[in-house]
């Protein structure tokens, strides 16, 4: 596992070697803060809370994380560097983990760069810090699961556009499973127990508890095991 370090380092610093990373960070912040202000009514609610900020994360991630993750493997395949990487003394698992953790760390930076929001609510009111902390934790865990899905889909193709579309579709399904409108449609077709079971696989369902300040081990395990499972499939897809 020691081989993870150099690849992680290369990948993580790699984000900052290209302008794409900075564009991504700016778009990410503008979109997340913009949604909170203009649609979430951040100020109008008159509450010292970041709920209107976090509530959009599942939707924001739906597009932004595939945008960050689409190149993970497809770029390596397109430029042929995958041949270089896999003839270095490194296992597929190490490579998958190193690239995943580097991308996750980058997304964590993007999420944490919203800290001026935290300062704002802290300055203007008396927020519940526990809720804010658990919301950040939930958001980062959920980002990991989205990213796991995107890493897997990007290993399936050398074309970044296909990779992006596949990622969005897969994430959309995982998100919609917990959306009440979608579930009422499902209820008309499937038995209740099945719909409830499917809803258990939704990002939104598990994320909501975090935004209420509840860190339920079940939700943590859900995100971590979904991430682990997609990374396992990622290894299988690359070794095929």
């Amino acid at each position: 596992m020691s081989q993870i370090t150099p690849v992680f380092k290369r990948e993580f610093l790699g984000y900052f070697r290209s302008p794409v990373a900075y564009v991504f960070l700016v778009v990410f912040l503008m979109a997340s803060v913009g949604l909170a202000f203009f649609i979430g009514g951040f100020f109008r609610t008159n509450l010292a809370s970041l709920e209107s900020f976090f509530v959009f994360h599942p939707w924001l991630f739906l597009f932004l994380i595939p945008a960050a993750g689409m190149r993970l493997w497809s770029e390596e395949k397109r430029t042929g560097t995958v041949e270089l990487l896999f003839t270095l003394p490194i296992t597929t698992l190490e490579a998958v983990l190193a690239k995943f953790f580097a991308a996750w760390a980058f997304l964590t930076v993007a999420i944490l760069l919203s800290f001026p929001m935290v300062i704002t609510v802290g300055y203007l009111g008396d927020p519940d810090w526990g809720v804010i902390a658990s919301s950040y934790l939930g958001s980062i865990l959920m980002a990991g699961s989205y990213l796991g899905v995107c890493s897997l889909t990007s290993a399936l193709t050398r074309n970044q556009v296909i990779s992006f579309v596949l990622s969005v579709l897969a994430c959309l399904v995982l998100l919609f499973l917990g959306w009440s409108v979608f579930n009422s449609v499902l209820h008309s077709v499937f038995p209740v127990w099945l719909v409830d079971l499917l809803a258990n696989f939704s990002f939104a369902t598990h994320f909501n508890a975090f935004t209420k300040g509840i860190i339920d081990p079940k939700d943590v395990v859900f995100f971590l095991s979904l991430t682990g499972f997609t990374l396992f499939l990622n290894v299988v897809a690359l070794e095929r």
Partner: protein
Amino acid sequence: MIEVKGLVKHYGSKRAVDGVSFTVNRGDILGFLGPNGAGKSTTMKMITGFLRPNAGTALVNGHDVTRDPVAVKKQLGYLPESAPAYGEMTVEEFLGFIAETRDFRARDARDAQVERALGLTQLAPVRRQTIETLSKGYKQRVGFAQALLHNPPVLILDEPTDGLDPNQKNEVRALIKNLAAEKAVVLSTHILEEVEAICTRVIIISQGKVVVDETPAQFRARQPGARLDAIFRSLTTSDA
């Protein structure tokens, strides 16, 4: 040092490599020849552990590539066809990354290996340039530097002189010849003179099968007085 045993690779119904076997000993420089699409690169990719063979295997210093690919990869320096590299990195950063994955983690050891590789391939003048902005010949040299970096006992070079100017071609040939005394080298090429100049053995493959395995002198003696490319043509077109 390298023992190739009955390697087979299918792509769909096509047999790209069809039972290739040979051995290469320390001190040998094996010239790997064959028409376009003969299966040279595919064979090399299987020896280096990048592609999994459908049948057969390769042993490098006694390590079986299908059983312990990481051990094999530690023994190898590999220059893939068209020398892929991470274009957004500078030459120095890229070689530093390779050094770290090759277990030169301490700063001094890493820098020493990078300096050595830069020196051998005369890359010092472009060391701070990003790889994507290098000319084709310099990119090729970066690929060569990467393969030599850890002074491996076995070198697998897919068209190492492709894209180099005549002076550099000679430099690289001289370098390979110098290094070869305590190494086993396999290089593919389309330049028959190159084989005569440096190789101690010639293998010609055609349609995935070995058709010639002998010394350059024996190869020339097949049709004394004829041009090498005439001999090559008669060997690789007769069975087409």
